[in-house]
């Protein structure tokens, strides 16, 4: 082996990459669902595939699980080619969207399934099933059938069942989408705690951007079968690469303007901006705009006057819709009581993020 190849090998193993998706594409007949996806997942990472329905996120998950075969590309896991193996030979387990618990088996038998099909000894099965049920706090339901359980309880059993084989990678296909809002929040925090506790790598699929932000170490945003952006929640929120990302993750104001002589102009708005002259698109988060309190504007700040059109109170904060010379802007401020008429607003030029179409 050449020293260069050796160096690459070492780099790969020390960087702790668990799963490598290399140029994977998938089409069903003439319909292309995924095109040329490359993505690495690190050991112990919580990575979320985020996207609208039809973006290909579930297909990518199913390719990793082995329920579908890629049309092109390869998938590797810890130095072993994965995509050529049948699902039952992969050290990957799945929590299904509607849990897919076996209705004819009890909770205990469901959890034991993965060990039983591998002909694990009876004594060992008992111990490990008890441990798994304890982890998800479902011991007292061990002898119930899944139909007797609530959604949240079924969710826990599905988790215990998927973890019993000690997978290297756990796939979760919108596992919380069937739960009501409160339970969902609670399960999110439990899921995060569980992942930290057991240290297994999670590949999570959701269409809910808020859920993705709360849970993930990194988010991979998919759009029409291609990766739009892969970054940590903070990074993707603060520096969206495209207009689509900026709008999909959180709320934003998209400002279509032009750059001329170091200044960006968009309707009545004007702020200092670098870059070659010409048309440009900016994303400005609602919370980056605030009511002007000082008389003098510091340099690097844009100031504008706008008429209040609507005000939505939501507890700690409120959202204003204001009209600035025909341009509608959304502004989020901390709650401060009813407003009306015209007001002065400011934002820092560094908060107007240049984005791609």
């Amino acid at each position, binding site marked *: 082996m050449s020293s260069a190849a050796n160096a690459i090998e070492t780099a790969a193993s020390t960087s702790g990459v668990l799963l490598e998706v290399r140029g994977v594409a998938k089409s069903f007949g003439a319909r292309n669902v995924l095109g040329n996806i490359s993505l690495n997942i690190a050991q112990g990472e919580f990575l979320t595939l985020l996207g609208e329905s039809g973006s290909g996120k579930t297909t990518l998950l199913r390719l990793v699980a082995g*329920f579908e075969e890629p049309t092109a590309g390869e998938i590797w896991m810890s130095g072993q080619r994965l995509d050529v193996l049948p699902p039952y030979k992969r050290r990957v387990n799945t929590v*299904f*969207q509607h849990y*897919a618990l*076996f209705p004819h088996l009890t909770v205990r038998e469901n959890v034991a*399934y993965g060990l039983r*099909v*591998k002909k694990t000894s009876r004594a060992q099965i008992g111990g490990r099933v008890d441990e798994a049920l304890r982890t998800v706090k479902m011991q007292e339901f061990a002898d119930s059938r899944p139909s007797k359980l609530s959604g949240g309880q079924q969710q826990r059993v599905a988790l215990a069942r998927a973890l019993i084989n000690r997978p290297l990678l756990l796939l979760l296909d919108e596992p919380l989408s069937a739960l009501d809002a409160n339970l969902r929040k609670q399960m999110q925090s439990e899921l995060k705690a569980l992942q930290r506790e057991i240290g297994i790598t999670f590949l999570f699929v959701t269409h809910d951007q808020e859920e993705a932000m709360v849970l993930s170490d990194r988010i991979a945003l998919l759009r029409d079968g291609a990766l739009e952006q892969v970054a940590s929640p903070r990074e993707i929120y603060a520096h969206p690469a495209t207009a689509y990302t900026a709008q999909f993750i959180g709320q934003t104001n998209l400002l279509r303007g032009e750059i001329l002589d170091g200044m960006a102009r968009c309707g009545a708005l004007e702020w200092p901006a670098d870059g070659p002259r010409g048309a440009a698109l900016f994303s400005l988060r609602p919370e980056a705009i605030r009511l002007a309190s000082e008389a003098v504007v510091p340099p690097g700040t844009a100031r504008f006057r706008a008429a209040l059109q609507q005000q939505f109170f939501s507890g700690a904060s409120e959202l204003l819709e204001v009209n600035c010379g025909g341009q509608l802007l959304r502004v989020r401020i901390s709650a401060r009581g009813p407003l009306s008429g015209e007001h002065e607003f400011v934002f820092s030029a560094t908060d107007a993020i240049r984005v791609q179409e």
Partner: protein
Amino acid sequence: MYSRAYKTLVSLPPLLWVGLFLLLPYALVFAHSFWAVHDGVLLHRWNFENYVTLFSKPVYIEVLLRTMRIAASVTLCSLLLGYPLAYYLSFHAEARKELLYQLVIVPLWVSYLVRGYAWKTILGSEGVLNAFLQYLHLTHEPVAFLLYSPFAVVLMLTHIYTPFVFLPIYAALEHIPRSLVEASADLGAGSVQTFLRVILPLSIPGLLAGATFAFVLSLGDFLAPLLVGGASGTMIANIVQSLFGAAYDWPLGAAISVCILIITISLLFLSERLEKRWSFK
């Protein structure tokens, strides 16, 4: 929500139907089984003679047992044919599914009699099968057991009732969420284990329904034995038919009918209990 008059109007026709064409005939059969015939005259004299005759003359018990043996064989053969077919169609046929499904259903449109006569021409001593066997020099003279034997009855009934077994099994298999099959593979089970641990247990209600169809329908069949059964393939319904016809002993025929009815109803009851035990919704 609905007026009393409306409810009565709607429920009257089915109640009349059930009353006139089911309950009344059953009551008549039941009553007849306790009457007697003397010198060709029906006597409305209550007695247990018919049941005593039925259980003391070996011929009736013998035919009844043979009938149950034939029905059991038909059930087994139809299951062995119908289950794999339904499994293949539901899980592996993919694009050919619709076409194959229609092909299974089509024979149901062909008259029972036509199919019976078809088997006669296939199995007879001058029939297609014997001619073929002799052409191949596998046999030198017609094979006799092919036609007019219990074998022929089982063959014909299996042919006729396999779609009835196929349909409920197919429906049960189609109702198994595919995510369960994926979950099983995901947890490390190969296709044989997945079949034995997930698919088979979840298809048991369909399997029971199909088996009940085949058994009960075979139990009461009299056309197949008439067409291809011969003397050795006579079944209990043929005896009932002759008692109600040429032999003119309606009371004895009714007693046998009551026995068959009891067997059938017990089987239906049992099968329903088992189906409930094996359905998980």
